[in-house]
């Protein structure tokens, strides 16, 4: 039972991510690429998927998106709750925006 629940949660996360990507890319491709940190190629692939394809991909047992930042600094800045709050989030934004986008290898 627990496994089934886990799988359905993964499916749901996959589905909402794919739907979000598609609607962002279709609204404004350039903005979507910046916001999502995708490469242009990824944006093209994801936006061209049909609903049936999206459903099929979403229902695989693995989460299809992963963390965009694998950098300790970013997480420390984002999680910090000290008085320096706003400046910290700006710092995090700068560090995040300085990183290269995801590309297909």
């Amino acid at each position: 039972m627990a496994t089934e629940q886990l799988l359905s949660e993964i499916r749901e996360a996959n589905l909402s991510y794919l739907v979000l990507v598609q609607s962002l890319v279709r609204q404004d491709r350039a903005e979507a690429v910046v916001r999502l940190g995708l490469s242009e190629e990824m944006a093209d692939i994801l936006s061209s998927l049909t609903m049936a394809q999206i459903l099929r991909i979403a229902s695989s047992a693995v989460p299809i998106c992963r963390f965009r930042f694998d950098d300790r600094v970013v997480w420390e800045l984002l999680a910090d709750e000290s008085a320096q709050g706003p400046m910290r989030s700006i710092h995090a934004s700068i560090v995040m925006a300085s990183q290269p986008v995801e590309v297909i290898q």
Partner: protein
Amino acid sequence: MSIGTMGVAAKSINAAAKSKSLVGEAHEVNRAIELIKLGARLQVLESEIDLSRGRLLRLYKEVAGVSPSKGMLPFSTDWFMTWQPNIHSSLFFNLHANVIKAAGTDRVDALIRTYRLYQEQLALCALPEVLSITRAWRLIKFFEVGMLDSARCTRCGGRFVVHKYEPVGNFVCGLCEPPARAGKTRQALDERNLSVSVHANA
């Protein structure tokens, strides 16, 4: 010059203006309006928008409701190096680099897009917009002519705006190592005192 030849000259100018496509002109007008709404100074419009000065002036008055402020634009790169402006400029610069990479768009489009993202970011943090769109435009210009450059902070890995040819071997940004007086402006102090007095009254 006789009145006759002046008339001919005026006619040929009219003809040149008419040969420009209406759609193209409408496009320029729209971009100008967006820039004015974001607070751009007239000099930005004059340099980026393909409309006559007279029309830009009229447009400015119509959209902004006031005459454009006179005087030169600030032209020093030093402003971008002071603590708070440097943080805002660096954020803008990084966003701009991403927008250019993603959209490969033209200058005005990229400027407007990036400025919107910048505004959005600051609204989220409830911080004031230190970098005006005119300054942001200057920033990009300074990069284009090679007066400014970016350096990676050796501690956080973020890219920050620096002077060109500044030694950046072990550069540490102003956020990883804030100067002693950073953020202690009169304004910040006033705000703090205000919140203290509010607490005292409550």
